[in-house]
């Protein structure tokens, strides 16, 4: 029989591009459907017969890499169909972040040599701060080392400019996946899904197949929650400090029973625990079920989060000692690096993932109607 179409099971058709390979695998999944109960990706697949590039981008960003489907797959290698959907989607996902990033080359650079870049950047910035620190000297606490005005002048643009770059990317994403106007229900659905990391739950709360092969474990979800809520607490602490500073003319330093510290210390502890946990889990997990090319970039990002948390806590612990200067430089260096790299590092995944959850809530709502 002659054919004018390639078959998804012909090895010649495998993996021309990450998106094509993901599409090939998704079409096989759509004829099987055994994995429907694991996460939102599979019900989303069953709603369609034909998958445009934008559909693949959306599915890739919806996948949380829990790996349940890989271990359950009757077509996983060495089967000829060679299904490894967690990897195909991870590679498509990473590629989509690079494609949608603005400006694009920065993302590609980070994804491929993340550890080196983050280290160099953090060290460089810390050195700069060290140089600057000598010059300052007004104020109390760490403001004795670097003035408040200087800090704001450096950090405000470093925070806002990456966010602006990210906004450009997310707009591109929304257009690529065919997103429509948002409904309030979409937002609440997405917040719940993200807040509980529902798509890392294995569908029934048993967790994912990450660090111990085909056995389930919820460790990754817990560690990720610690990072996410720890980061949000730290961020809230910063906001609280800003409000106290400008709204109530109460500049730092703050005592332990103040809002910035009550939010920041547990936040820093959670972030430390979560980031260390994620590093440990990542070292035990099989890199071939993710995007092996981006392993370094992902690891650098988690390490950076850990550095931010540890230096922050150390800085607080060193209050009143001579170590404050050096620790402040390290802390500010790592925070600034984290901010600057947000649109180009794994940090961006939170934003894309949330957009994907929004879009999924939107499509599911439309399908129910």
């Amino acid at each position, binding site marked *: *029989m*002659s*054919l*004018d*179409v390639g*078959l*998804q*099971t012909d090895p010649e058709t495998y993996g021309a591009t990450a998106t094509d390979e993901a599409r090939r695998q998704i*079409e*096989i999944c*759509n*004829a*099987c*459907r*055994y*994995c*429907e*109960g*694991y996460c939102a990706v599979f*019900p989303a697949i*069953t709603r369609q*017969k034909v998958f445009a590039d934008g559909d693949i981008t959306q599915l890739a960003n919806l996948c949380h890499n829990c790996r*349940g*489907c890989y*271990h*359950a*797959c*009757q*077509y*996983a*290698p*060495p*089967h*000829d169909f060679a299904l490894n959907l967690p990897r195909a989607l991870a590679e498509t996902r990473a590629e989509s972040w690079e494609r949608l990033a603005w400006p694009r080359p920065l993302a590609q650079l980070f994804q491929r040599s993340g550890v080196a870049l983050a280290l160099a950047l953090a060290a460089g910035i810390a050195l700069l701060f060290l140089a600057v620190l000598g010059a300052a000297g007004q104020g109390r606490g760490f403001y004795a080392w670097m003035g408040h005005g200087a800090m704001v002048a450096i950090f405000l643009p470093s925070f806002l400019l990456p966010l602006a770059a990210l906004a450009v990317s997310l707009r591109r994403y929304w257009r690529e996946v065919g997103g429509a106007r948002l409904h309030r229900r979409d937002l609440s659905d997405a917040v719940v899904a993200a807040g509980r990391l529902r798509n890392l739950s294995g*569908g*029934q709360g*048993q967790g994912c197949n990450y660090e111990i092969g*085909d*056995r389930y474990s919820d460790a990754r979800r817990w560690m990720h929650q610690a990072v996410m809520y720890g980061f949000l607490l730290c961020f809230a602490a910063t906001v609280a400090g800003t409000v106290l500073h400008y709204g109530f003319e109460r500049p730092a330093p703050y005592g332990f029973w103040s809002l910035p510290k009550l939010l920041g210390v547990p936040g820093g502890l959670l972030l430390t625990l979560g980031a260390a946990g994620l590093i440990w889990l990542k070292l035990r997990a099989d890199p071939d079920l993710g995007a092996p090319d981006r392993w370094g970039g992902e690891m650098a990002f988690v390490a950076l989060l850990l550095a931010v948390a540890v230096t922050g806590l150390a800085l607080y612990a060193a209050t009143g000692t001579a170590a404050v200067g050096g620790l402040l430089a390290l802390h500010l260096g790592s925070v600034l690096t984290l901010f600057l790299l947000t649109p180009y590092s794994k940090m961006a995944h939170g934003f894309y993932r949330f957009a994907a959850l929004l879009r999924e809530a939107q499509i599911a709502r439309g399908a129910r109607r």
Partner: protein
Amino acid sequence: MTDVPGCMDGDWDVIVVGGGNAGMCAAIEAAEAGARVLILEGAPRAYRGGNSRHTRNFRCMHRAPLSVLIDRYDAAEFFDDLVRVTGGETDEGLARLAIGMSEECLPWMEAHGVRFQPSLSGTLSLGRTNAFFLGGGKALVNAYYNTAEDLGVTVFYDAQVRHVGVDGRRFTHVEVEHRETRRRIAGRAVVLAAGGFQADIDWLARAWGESARNFLIRGTPYNRGVVLRDMIDQGARTVGDPTQCHAVAIDGRAPKYDGGIVTRLDCVPFSVVVNRDGARFYDEGEDVWPKRYAIWGRLVAAQPDQVAYSIIDSQAIDLFMPSVYPPVAADTLPELARKLGLPPERVSRTVADFNAACGDGRFDPQNLDGLATRGLDPPKTNWARPIVQPPFYGYSLRPGVTFTYLGLKVDAGARAAGPTGPYDNVWSAGEMMAGSILGQGYLAGFGMTIGTVFGRLAGQGAAAHVA
């Protein structure tokens, strides 16, 4: 799990031959009863689990909603369903045993790591009778291997049992080939759960006829019936028609082995099906597809070259679940026929004759709509709607073998029998003895029911024997 050949020698209470669903249930039961258990799995680790890898659900009797199962499905209805598909070719005592025990098996499965999910999209009609495995049969297999490992069961992969040593009525040892060395392993009891012989094409061809060489094997390439053959040669009592296999019509482009679920094709009721010569040969609309796919395996097997072609038009392309392969498409019927390698004029005439025989009426893809042809031989008795709207699509169909019926005869305790009566210490479970209950036809999810029930019984029996 250890994989050092030296560890195979040991003081084994129970040797389980075959690490699919039935073998794992037996191993877990025996280990929980305190037996030292060795599993010899013929496949490498990645392909462990036999045909259980490809399964997706478990048919289960229940008197009230149970786990993911809705409503009720009592023993009488279950048995009626079985009698209908087997045409009465079943051992009623064993069948009622399997049905009756299925209800307590589901909670047992959950307690041993199996997870269920609600009925898959496109299979809602099974939500009452069949409990679907979260992730499918391979996830179930993984769960059982983890449970067995936690119980201290030893597993060897790539361990092909070549001979089961029996002395009179007593099992003494197995001879196993592992990494090109053959070794003898003694044990106090054995559970044979090594599947049917459908992957041995030569055997299939001897049993069915030469045309079986054109059949595709839907499941594992490792079920070659070596252990079954060895037991038959030693005079073990058998059941099931040795010439028959369960074959369904699947996409003709599927791989020779192991294509599994994605190669099924659900378009036949909405199509005309022609053979290699472009002629129709059977009523495509006789009944809904879940009740007809099994007979189409035989129908296609009887056609020249064991191949057929299902032709639809653009009106029908969205009426069935997507198959893994895209259809062959063309704007005209002769062009489609050429692409499919069929005689264009003959195909055009067959479709034209069909179209001319179609009458008026309401087309209803979900139900038997009675929209039948008039004066056509063979008729199409439902969904007969003219095939007129381009593009036209074609799929090739071939018989896909699921399992063979020949197996070992067992009693209500899953114990196998030799020429002089029941063996002292040989049990059998799963596909290897399912022919006792499924003499012909198939009931979705019932293979897993038989495997679970008789696997557990075999494990319990073997453990009690060695205790």
